[in-house]
Each structure stands twice: as C-alpha cells, then as structure tokens.
C-alpha cells in the first residue's frame, strides 16, 4: 500500500466507503445510546448525518463489483 506505484482500486475504495458509512452510522447512534441524560431521541442534525452515512455505505457497496479498476 505504501509503494510508489500503489493506487486505490474501485473495490478497495468501495470497501472503505462501506466501512466508513457503517462506522459513522454506529457512532451517531452511539451518541444517544451512551449519553443517557439526553432527551428527545435522534435530532434533525443526527438524521441528516445518518442519511449521509447510509448513502456512503450504499455507494461503497455499488463500487465493490468493479474490482481492480483504479478509483
């Protein structure tokens, strides 16, 4: 990965986006799960962020079948 000739493939980029989307989704949900003192559930800003994480993960999934094409 750290060679002068390495470049990300569509598959690897897709995997990174999928992982990033899932991790982001989990982190945003964790704000409510861990912060027990909060009221009002998932707010509008969190909803926007969750939607973006889902979109990121979805795009990542669609890139994986493109295999070794350079990203």
């Amino acid at each position, binding site marked *: *990965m*750290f060679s002068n000739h390495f*470049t*990300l493939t569509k598959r690897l980029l897709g995997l990174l986006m999928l992982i990033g989307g899932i991790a982001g989704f989990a982190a945003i949900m964790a704000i409510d799960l861990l912060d027990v003192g909060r009221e009002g559930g998932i707010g509008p*800003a969190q909803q926007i962020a969750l939607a973006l994480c889902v979109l990121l993960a979805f795009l990542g999934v669609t890139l994986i079948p493109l295999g070794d094409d350079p990203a």
Partner: protein
Amino acid sequence: MIAALVILLFHLMVYGVFALNLMQFPFDYDQGEGFELVDTILFSQGQFPYRDTNVYPFYSSNYPPLFHVIAAPFVWLFGEAYWYGRLLGTLSAIIAACAIGYAVYRDGGRQRWVAVLSGLAFLASNTVYHIAPLFRQHMTMVMFETLAIVVLANVNEIKDQRRRRRVLFTGLAFVLAAGYTKQLAIATAIAVFVFLFIRQPRRSLVWGVGFALVGGAIFLWMNIATDGQWWLQTITANVNQFIPEQTVGLFRLWFSLHGFLIVPAALYILYELYFSRLSIYAIWFIAGVGVSILSGKWGAGDSYFTTSIAGLCILSGLFAAKTMRREWVNFPINLYTRRIILPLWRVANRLSGVGVLLIPLLYIGYGIATLHMPTQGAVFSTVADVFNIQPNAQNGFYDSAGRIAGGYADIGHLTSQADIDAGWHIVDLVRATDQLVLSEEASFNLIAGKDVITNPTQLLNLAQQGLFDSSALIAMIERQDFGLIIMRAQFYPVDVLQRIAVYYEIVETVPMNGFEYMILAPRSTPLPE
C-alpha cells in the same frame, strides 16, 4: 451559445456595477465589514486582533489573519478605508472565475466557449455576487481554494519528480493560505488529501505530515503570541448552535438557483465514480457540499455554499465539454456498462446529438435562474421595462434569490446618495459627543476618530458558550459612559441588550441601506428594575 454568453456577460456587468458602487460607499454595507477593517488596521500596526474581550475595548476578531495581512499595506498607503478590501474581494472572485475557466479549458479538451461560460457562471451566482464585492475574507479563501485545486488536479500524472514536487508544494501552499484566510477551507484540505490518498497513499501521507507540521507550527506560534486568545476566539467561539431548518432552507435555495448546473455536475461525478477515475474536482465538490451543511450554524449563511459553487462550475463545464465533443459514446466495459449503458446505447447515440443543443440551454436556464439586477438607472431601467422585471428587494433591486431561511444575506442592492448622506449624519452625531460611542458597526467610530468598542457578534458567540464576562461592559453602560449607542441588528448578548434598554433610550432612527439604525442616548432617569 451566443445567447448564453450574452446573459452571463450581462451578469458580469451587474457584478462590476455593484462592485464599483460599493467601493464608493464609505460605511459598512454588510454587518461585520468594519471589523474586518479594524483587524486590517491592527495588523498594519503589527498587532494581533485576537484579544481578551472581557476588558475594554471588548474587541476581538474571530477570523484567521491572511486576508487582513494582504490588505494591511493599503492602510499604510491610503489610510483607513473600505474600498481596498472590497477591491480585493472583487478581484479574488475574478481570479477564481479565471481559474475555473482555465481548468475547464485544460481538462475539458480545450472547448473555449464552454470554458468561458463556466468562469462566467461562477460570477453570475447570486451567492458570489452578494459576497465577493464586500470587505470580507470569504472570497479570498475561495480564490486560494480554487487555485489549489486547479494546480493539484493533474499532479499525479507529472512524471518529472522535481516538477511534481514543485506543483505539490505550490498547491499545498494555496491550501494553507486558504486555511489561514478562513477556517472553512478545512473542506478543501480534506478533499486534497483524500484525492492524493486515492491516487497514491504514500504521497498523501508524506506530504500530509509536512503540511500538518507547517500548519501546526503557525497555529502554535499565533496561540502563544496571543496568550491563547487565537484558539479561544477563532476556534472555540465558532462552535455555535446548529439550526437544521436553516441548513435545509439554504440547500433549497442553492438548488433552486444552481440546479441547471448541479444536475450535470452530479452526472459527471457518477460517470467518474463508475466509469473513470475520481478527479480532485469531484472530491472537492462533495467536500464543499459537505461543509455547506454548517451553513445552519448561528452566524453562518449562504456564503458557505461558495466553495461548492466553484466546484459545480468546473464539473458542469467538464460535462458540457465532453458533451460538445460527443464523447459520451466511449464507456469502458464493466458491470454497469453492460447492465445500464449498453441497453440504452441506441438512445444514447441519438441523445449525444441532442446534447450539443442542450448545453447552451443549460447555461441560458442558469442565467435566468440566477437573475439579479437593479431595476433603476440608465441601462437597467430599460432592460427591466422590456422584460417586465419588478423590484423585489431594497433600493429598486430584483433578486431571484430571497430569504426562505435564516442566514440569507439581504444584500446586493446598490447604495444611493441618500444612504451616504445618512451615514454622514450618523458620523456627525458621533462627532458631536465628547464621550465614547458604542456602535454595532465600526465605520462611524473609525471615521469620527473614536475608539471602536466591541465586536458584537463575537461577544454573542462567546456569551452563548459562557465564555464572555459582560460585567465590565455592563458597568460602563450603567455608568452611562457612552454618549451614544448605535444599533442595527441588536447582536449584543441578551444581558447587555437588557442593560442598554434600562439606561438608554432611542432618540432617533436613521434609515440607511434599507436598515433602520437606532441612535440611543442616556436616559435622564434609568427605567426602574
């Protein structure tokens, strides 16, 4: 193409008229311009504007220094004035537009007309028009961002190592300059390093470490030199309340104005994502849209979309250039080509011919969607009459943009002689008192030769986070140390406004630029508590 060019050149003329009009206006036009001038004056005297706001004169800047440092030599040459800051903003937008046009020309197969339209489209945006001719640093940041992106776009393809390093160094220097002009350039920094990482992770990490060291060293030096005020005033104080409705409203406005170019830009990104390689332009646009979400912060607004507008002008230009070259017939074979493109092949071939006709229509549609112009004056009144354009904003101005959410800047109209006269009247009132004057805008005090006291929005930023001790300012209000208080938007923290209401009363209201300036004088007897 000619019709699109005529419409966008008309926009350019309106932009030039507005910029010239503002350069001749000697007072604040947009709230906060005067404080940018104060920052510039302080830098010209070798002083930092990041100061303790709990003590007199309760003033601090909340922006990084580069724009003010660039403007500082003008203070040495011309004294305290607004025109040079507005000139710098105006020129920054023109340089950014030229860079956009150049990028489309270079990377879009040398389509001259499309390149010109792309650059003009940037200047035609209502957002750019509103913000660029002001004494504000935002457009200078966007200029540095655009230059960085255009410089770095093809850096990975440079074979000669020395030349590649030179280009990388230049591009990253522009990113650093953007960041030290305004904090929002973080989006461009992220985009640049994501792009470098995708193309070659090693290069991204090596240069990223160097970039972080240089940027961090400057940051640390300023923080030490200002005794921590740099961190407090520019970082901590800027973490404001987020209003989701404001973000949603401003995104609706952004799409309604720029939709004609957003759609082709988005299609071009999808093409790169699935059938080509992701360019720095695509990643920059996405980062620019991402940072626009912050437009919902208190104190933020439509200016936060300017980076994304620069990006969409380049991407839509590349889409248009590819269409004009009829190159949408060469898709690499992959899963999505087989599933989506090949079944549509016959239709696509016919559409490529239609596309050549469609491109000028896109720019004509964009030019109409972003229409903004004075409806008074020699040329403009004739155009307004012919096309039945009615004013819908201040001072006989038509603006296709409008306030559908908080954070929208109600500006863009030309100033009049009556506005200038009103400003001088307020200056006369300030000069007439021997006492200090507390003003929400700096220009009246600066021209009258009195101390500029407070930066109200910054005090409110700090107060909302419990970081402003208002006791010394309130003590001055209660002692009626101020001979006059001048307010326009009442941006002071609530407790300060409450004490002003008890100890001061409105003695005059002066209309200027469509706003009501309240002149308050000490009450002979304070209101009962």
